[in-house]
């Protein structure tokens, strides 16, 4: 079965790990032993059992009651498979958060309804991350409703706050649903709760099933092959992955950025000779001529393609740390130095406000123009996400992510 990957999002302590732990228990997706072990550990620590312990399995995570690094847990419900990606909510752990969330098909955002919690700067930052990761489906669970007497007013208030922020950052074309829950007490997780009589919608799990079904059928799109490297010492065969579209033996493809045209003499899919391959396939291509000394970083397309090559990129950048030192980007499997980077606009992601100039603060975003040391193959993130996004480094250290906007 195809498993839907759902990343959790939200401020620290708003209940992400607790929610996944509760869902694992409520849907019977975890062994008795794992629950017994987690209970034993909490007892040893002199604490009340907390479902989040099942996910947070590092000693430090349990002692400090926080998630340090991302983890995953699978749940089967009404014949639909889900893989929940738990991520840390702390600002300083954004690197780990992004590493987990980048794999998601859709997102589940948690916001605590407690009077002193609600939608925070970090909540907004995570919504911004969802926008940058290309997430188009968002389920918002308003958590800890037990702490505010299952108040409808508080639920509506948070709903409005989220809507306001989405408007502000221009996060459109998004399928969004809201559900009031208590992760700790398992209210509205699987069964509808009788404590929220005013709520007429479905339980969280039923919403997730519905959302997973609304995934539009995979429209194949134009051919894009990312080349990983040479298959043989003679450098006449390459291997890579079909990112979109399909390819047949005998097809002629253009390799970007060089623009060289080459014919596919033989095609192998997962190691077996085949006449064609489609989106998702890992392929080996035997070419009619040598293509140069480097294969890695090449992108194969058809003659008519929206992809292009160039060394100038316009992008939205989200930083995880202060930008200083030598910048470079990693795209299509290769790292390229940035010769020049100009900040056109900076965005405070905790408010959604943008300013015309200045430098990008750590953990914030900006619109930038980058001049690269050499040409790369690319498209806009909107059109072809896999070749429209990059990892950003400064002094070869991970410093953020970027998406190509023009």
């Amino acid at each position: 079965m195809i498993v839907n990957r759902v990343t959790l999002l939200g401020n620290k302590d708003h209940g992400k790990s607790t929610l996944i732990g509760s869902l694992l228990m409520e849907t019977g997706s975890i062994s008795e032993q794992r629950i017994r072990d987690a209970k034993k550990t909490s007892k040893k620590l002199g604490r009340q059992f907390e479902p989040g312990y099942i996910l947070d399995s590092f000693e430090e995570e349990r002692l400090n009651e926080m998630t340090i690094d991302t983890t995953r847990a699978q749940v089967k419900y009404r014949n639909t498979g889900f893989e929940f990606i738990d991520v840390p909510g702390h600002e300083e752990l954004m690197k780990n958060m992004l590493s987990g969330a980048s794999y998601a098909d859709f997102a589940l955002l948690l916001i605590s309804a407690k009077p002193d919690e609600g939608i925070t700067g970090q909540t907004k930052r995570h919504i911004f991350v969802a926008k940058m990761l290309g997430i188009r489906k968002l389920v918002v669970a308003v958590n800890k409703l037990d702490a505010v007497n299952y108040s409808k007013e508080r639920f509506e208030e948070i709903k409005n706050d989220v809507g306001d922020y989405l408007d502000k950052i221009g996060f459109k074309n998004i399928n969004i649903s809201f559900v009031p829950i208590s992760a700790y007490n398992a209210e509205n997780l699987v069964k509808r709760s009788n404590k929220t009589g005013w709520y007429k919608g479905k339980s969280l799990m039923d919403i997730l099933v519905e959302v997973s079904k609304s995934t539009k059928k995979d429209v194949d799109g134009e051919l894009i092959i990312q080349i990983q490297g040479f298959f043989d010492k003679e450098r006449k065969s390459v291997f890579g992955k079909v990112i979109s579209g399909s390819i047949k033996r005998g097809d002629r493809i253009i390799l970007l950025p060089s623009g060289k045209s080459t014919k596919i003499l033989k095609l192998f899919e997962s190691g077996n000779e085949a006449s064609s391959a489609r989106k998702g396939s890992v392929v080996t291509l035997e070419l009619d001529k040598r293509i140069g000394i480097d294969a890695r970083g090449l992108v194969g397309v058809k003659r008519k393609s929206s992809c292009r090559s160039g060394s100038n990129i316009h992008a939205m950048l989200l930083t995880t740390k202060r930008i200083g030192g030598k910048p470079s980007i990693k795209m299509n499997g290769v790292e390229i130095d940035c010769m020049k980077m100009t900040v056109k606009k900076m965005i405070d992601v905790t408010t959604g406000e943008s300013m015309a100039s200045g430098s990008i603060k750590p953990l914030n975003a900006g619109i930038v123009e980058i001049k690269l040391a050499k040409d790369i193959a690319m498209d806009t993130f909107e059109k072809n996400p896999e070749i429209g996004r990059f990892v950003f480094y400064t002094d070869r250290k991970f410093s953020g992510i970027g998406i190509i906007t023009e």
Partner: protein
Amino acid sequence: MIKQDIKLLEERSIYIIREAKTNFKNVAALWSMGKDSTTMLALARKAFHGKVPFPVIHIDNGIDFPETYEFRETLAKKWNLDLIVAKSEIKPEMSGFACCGANKTVALKKVLKDYGFDGLIVSIRRDEHGIRAKERVFSPRNKNFKWNYKNQVAELWGDYSSNDDSDGHVRVHPLLDWNEVDIWEYVRRNKVPTNPLYFSRNGYRYRSLGCLHCTTPVRSDAGNIEKIIKELETTKDEERAGRDQDKEKAYVMEKLRSLGYM
């Protein structure tokens, strides 16, 4: 346990194994002759059209099951494997933490140093253990084999080759996404050879294989692959229930792994 889409898992793993071969100067794989690392070799053969293109290492403490040694010899010949046997001396007083931690890890350190391997393919899966679920696909170790789990490298969108400053080697985990039942489904569909100890004899079978001292069989009547798959789809027991190093006391696995264990 969820049975996932096998084709999708196969494609992801082949991609990762090719990334490993492309990104390192000198890569090797660990082979315990168990179902997971043997499946990994079957995937490597697909990725490289019938040939495993790197050496495979068996960390041999001399106390594996006789069936396991026999399986090793047969398959190494059949698949033309470049097999390296790295012997580790077992002392009678050693057990559990000392045996897996000190003994196996010392032997592994030596073989990596002797051959100068900079990449090591290890067939762990997320669903085996809470700690393994926290792993990256490409996971650096420093020269003392330490896993810096409090500050792991970034890994976005399947770009596994993130920069890191580790002065040791990088562990590569091509099977991280697989569940136990997926391995068996793959074994069934692709006729991957398996150690006979996995199948029930007299009401017991080994669900996870370690060495003679620390592995115990579990109650099971599953005498063939189909029955094993059926058993796993409904079981509520942990796969590694028969493996001592997982349960001795809390965080043993975390400590072993931070010291260099698989």
